[in-house]
């Protein structure tokens, strides 16, 4: 039971982390109609920046804040240099151009930081465990990821639904030309939104960095997951991304933890042990296929357009 609660918390933590990534993707897609494969590269950069800055300043928190700023700047630079020219183009063009960016960023990271991975050590005050329920201890760091992600989700909701900037963002999503015609600096707005998405990806990357090793290509696997989430949730819908991210986080984590036991009920021990890892990695793709067959627009189709 203790283990089950711990796995549930892991699922929640992973889901929230995925939400940070998916929120950026879905924001950029919903507003600029832009498919950004290079989102995973920004996630990777966030992790590398955090590891580097934390080593420089000697402080995890300072490193994280600096890394966040740096990813924001990189994101805005990418928008100004490349993405800006892709609006209104075919989705295929987006896929190709951002695929090129992935190659570029992967190689750039290899050039600067070398092919070997890096690690981001946790400060001692985070490297402990906290009693979350009577008899259940949970990693303080993972708990703090949950707290930070929830705070960011709340902030995003507030930003998009309750502020003037959010109003412009939503207006831009439903009709770009009209918002531009009304005198809003749509170029700047897009740069800001892209930067915001990049910062969210960077935040996810730097928070994941102490748990996994920081390495080239770390953004690629998780990017696909983030895409699956945006598609399940309905592209352009932040609420959908939130629900789908939590769903995927739980299914993936619990699937990995319990699928072997589940299979053992009906199959032999060996079959279960060999088939389970592959099948549990497939679960979320299966979920996506089912969702798309039943609701081709995702769970919460964005009402815009």
């Amino acid at each position: 039971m203790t283990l089950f609660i711990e796995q549930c918390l892991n699922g929640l933590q992973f889901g929230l982390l995925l939400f940070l990534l998916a929120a950026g993707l879905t924001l950029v897609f919903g507003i600029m109609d832009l498919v950004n494969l290079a989102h995973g590269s920004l996630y990777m950069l966030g992790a590398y920046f955090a590891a580097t800055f934390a080593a420089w300043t000697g402080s995890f928190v300072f490193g994280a804040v600096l890394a966040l700023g740096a990813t924001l700047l990189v994101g805005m630079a990418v928008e100004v240099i490349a993405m800006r020219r892709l609006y209104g183009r075919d989705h295929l063009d987006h896929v190709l151009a951002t695929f090129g960016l992935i190659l570029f960023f992967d190689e750039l990271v290899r050039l600067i930081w070398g092919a070997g991975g890096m690690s981001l050590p946790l400060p001692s005050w985070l490297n402990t465990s906290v009693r979350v329920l009577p008899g259940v201890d949970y990693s303080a760091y993972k708990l703090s990821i949950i707290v930070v992600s929830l705070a960011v989700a709340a902030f995003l909701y507030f930003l998009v639904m309750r502020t003037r900037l959010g109003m412009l963002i939503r207006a831009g999503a439903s009709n770009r030309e009209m918002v531009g015609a009304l005198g809003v600096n749509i170029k700047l707005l897009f740069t800001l939104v892209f930067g915001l998405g990049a910062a969210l990806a960077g935040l996810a990357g730097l928070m994941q960095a102490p748990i996994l090793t920081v390495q080239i290509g770390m953004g690629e696997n998780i990017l696909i997951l983030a895409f699956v989430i945006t598609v399940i949730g309905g592209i352009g819908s932040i609420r959908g991304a939130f629900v789908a991210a939590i769903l995927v986080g739980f299914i993936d984590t619990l699937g990995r933890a319990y699928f072997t036991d589940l299979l053992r009920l009906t199959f032999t021990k060996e079959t279960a042990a060999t088939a389970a890892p592959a099948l549990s990695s497939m679960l979320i793709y299966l979920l996506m296929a089912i969702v798309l067959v039943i609701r081709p627009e995702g769970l919460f189709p964005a009402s815009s357009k």
Partner: protein
Amino acid sequence: MIPTFNLRTTVGLLLLLALVLLPVYVELTGSRFLLTLFTRIVILALAAVSLNLILGYGGMMSFGHAAYLGIGGYAVGMLAFEGITTGFVQWPVALLVSAFFALVIGALSLRTRGVYFIMITLAFAQMAYYIVAGLARYGGDDGLTIEKRSQFIAPINLSNKVQFYYICLGLLCGAIYLVWRLVNSRFGMALQGARSNDTRMRAIGFPTYRYKLTGFVIAGTLCGLAGALLANHTDFVSPAMMYWTRSGDLIIMVVLGGMGSTFGPLFGAVALLVLEEVLSGITEYWQIILGPLLLLVVLFARGGIDGLLGKARHG
């Protein structure tokens, strides 16, 4: 349709002629490496030709085309592992299995459109990737070495590198011809019509879903053939064959060469792989050049190489 001889067709045919003569050059200079490189190029060009049918002519942005490369390859690899080395079984099985997967994936994916289609094909390819990576009996993540290439009757010997090259080239020419015939047939016209305006095609009575699905299955089957060849070429299959970046490479080839053109995929495959080879000779960090180059092609050279050779569009 009578082929009109223009610059693009001429260059395409000249390139094919150069590929036919390549082994002679290799014999004269003795550079075996070139033959290996170009066998690989020809095989991947075949995969790109198959993708061009649905991407270029059908407007279906499949981001999971490498899955069939892997499925075809694994069909050969797994049969060889189980002791069935005859190509007369291996190759038909590779084609049938690829066709079957294309049918299932296509039937589900074609219910969606636009960016959802890109993503769902990607997801299916990743699923296939994880299935194969989980097959512990066949090497799992590490892949599977093929001890013996596909066996055919007497004069055909795939272990003979020159002969194998010519077989691949012959199949590539066959595929280019097949796709050319297909797109200029009634079926191809309907497919291209569905690309331009799906609603209108349905309004005038074409069941576009079936046309697109048929195109999807043909493309998947052809790519499965390329997979079977690739497995024989490298004597090795691994899940990496169907990783999503490989699907990206195939899309690059098609777009770089020129979407929806007869020889475009061939141009693209030759250009991309030769470029990779040249750049990796210049610097270890060659992708730092290739990435932005890709961006520039997307931004400024939409028609790809085919478009540079002539402005008029096909079909």
